């Protein structure tokens, strides 16, 4: 007869008072700051924060271990480490947003969104040609990539499960994911050179370059999502005598649509900031160009690069425009993400 030996007969355990965390946090910060001054003789923020964090970890560990026991102590340790890592990871993002905002705001004005750089040297001018260029080029890239990517994903997830062809496609898609963006740009440039004569640059060439980068992302994310759709739904449709293609179009895709939309938006966000391939394939210009198929087309990343790398005599004016361009780009990506979320929520399968 084996009996279970209980470590403790009571069900209650010691609890730290609620104020422990804030109090020890403030204490550690003050002490860490003091120690940092003591060590370096000056106020070294980085060192102070690091010391404060270590002190906080130590204090919490000892306090929890003594009062609440070892299991709760490991729980707290893990929590504190994860929160620390999270804050550390957020720092660059916060700093980036701050930097772009503070430097981009001065030229984030009406002329920036109503004028191009045609005949502008020095201050003034705007990036409307680049904003539209980005919209055209990425829009076209999306139009090319989404059908190709989605159909490939449907083949992989629904028709070619585990057959040779789908294995080969998966392999090549993986290879494509790793293609450096500059190579995509050179490919598009060379392709258009073959088709339309050497040296031709156009927004469409840029779209092709971006598609090369976008298609594998769309394929991969869509395939994963289609595989997440439960097989039971497909079987339910088959059992009603629904042909396979109608099942895919009317059951599988609607069930996965919210994820598919998010995937596409992420893929757009991934390529919208590409600079190198657009530099080569779409070229740069100072004027508005509404024709995707002829003449170079400016895009925001290229605009930013160009303004920053080749400032004229009035350097500050060019750099201000570069930062405003960067800010615009970030905003576009943010709006895309928000729109994606809204669309995803709109289409998500409802339960109530």
């Amino acid at each position, binding site marked *: 007869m084996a009996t279970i030996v209980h470590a403790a007969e009571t069900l209650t355990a010691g609890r730290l008072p609620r104020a422990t965390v804030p109090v020890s946090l403030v204490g550690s910060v003050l002490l860490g700051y003091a120690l940092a001054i003591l060590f370096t003789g000056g106020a070294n923020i980085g060192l102070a924060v690091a010391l404060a964090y270590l002190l906080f970890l130590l204090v919490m560990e000892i306090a929890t271990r003594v009062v609440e026991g070892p299991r709760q102590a490991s729980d707290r340790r893990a929590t504190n480490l994860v929160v620390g890592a999270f804050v550390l990871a957020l720092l660059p993002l916060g700093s980036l947003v701050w930097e772009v905002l503070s430097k981009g705001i001065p030229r984030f004005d009406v002329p920036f969104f109503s004028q191009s750089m045609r005949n502008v040297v020095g201050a003034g001018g705007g990036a409307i040609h680049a904003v539209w260029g980005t919209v055209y080029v990425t829009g076209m890239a999306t139009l090319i990539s989404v059908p190709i990517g989605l159909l490939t994903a449907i083949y992989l997830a629904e028709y070619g499960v585990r057959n040779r062809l789908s294995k080969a496609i998966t392999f090549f898609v993986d290879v494509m994911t790793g293609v450096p963006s500059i190579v995509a740009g050179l490919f598009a440039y060379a392709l258009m050179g073959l088709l339309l004569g050497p040296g031709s640059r156009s927004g469409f060439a840029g779209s092709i370059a971006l598609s090369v980068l976008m298609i594998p992302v769309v394929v991969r994310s869509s395939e994963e999502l289609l595989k997440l759709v439960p097989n039971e739904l497909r*079987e339910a449709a*088959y*059992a*009603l*005598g629904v042909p396979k293609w109608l099942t895919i179009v009317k*059951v599988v895709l609607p069930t996965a649509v919210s994820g598919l939309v998010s995937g596409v938006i992420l893929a757009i966000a991934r390529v919208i900031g590409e600079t190198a391939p657009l530099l080569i394939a779409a070229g740069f210009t100072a004027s508005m160009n509404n024709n995707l198929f002829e003449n170079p087309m400016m895009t925001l990343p290229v605009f930013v690069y160009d303004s920053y790398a080749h400032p004229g005599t009035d350097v500050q004016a060019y750099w201000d425009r570069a930062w405003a361009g960067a800010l615009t780009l970030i905003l576009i990506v943010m709006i895309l993400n928000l729109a994606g979320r809204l669309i995803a929520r709109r289409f998500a399968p*409802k*339960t109530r």
Partner: protein
Amino acid sequence: MSKRIETTDLNVYYGNFRAVEDVTITIEPRSVTAFIGPSGCGKSTFLRTLNRMHEVIPGAYVEGEVLLDGENLYGPGVDPVRVRRQVGMVFQRPNPFPTMSIKENVLAGIRLNNRRMPKADQDDLVERSLRGANLWEEVKNRLDLPGSGLSGGQQQRLCIARAIAMEPQVLLMDEPCSALDPISTLAIEDLMSELKEQYTIVIVTHNMQQAARVSDVTAFFNIAGTGSPGKLIEVGPTDKIFSAPDVQATEDYISGRFG
């Protein structure tokens, strides 16, 4: 409106694994046939061969014949989609379409197949099917809400409504009541007795009383051991199977002296 199913020496495979061996059985129209047997003996597998749902699993195939009123379901040129329109199926686990409302779920067979139907007929069909599945009273005020918002048992009855809305010749049900309370179970059983006036019904069940209550014919499947294929041991009128079966294993299983 109701068709006879005959199989001869049917072998069912998952890749190299033979799950069901040499089943020869005749399923009479306008009757309820119950499949009973221990878990894993291939009841679901065999059932799925009767409307060609087995082959949607990669690597799965069937050897032998399934005759639906004399026409071989596995003959050359037979379109599985057409087969499934005549032989409906209710699954072990409820699987309503999560993107569709209750009403759309009932009409799924029509809408998904792009068939046109006047609005009034649609409403009529929805009500008839839901009443048939004993769900109408519970959902009549929320037909436009999502089907996945129903309880498990309600979802299963929704799936039954969806299947009978297609008015199939044969209705296959794989443990349709395993997620239902006694009241809904009774309703489904009554429904089966009603439906058998028009359809051929095949039901898989682990509930002996249910088999005894609803079925006219009972088929007992068994398996010799893990890894060996399931076999049809005995088939006969339910009264006989439950009172004086020919095979000892059947008697052991039914009386609970199994294994």
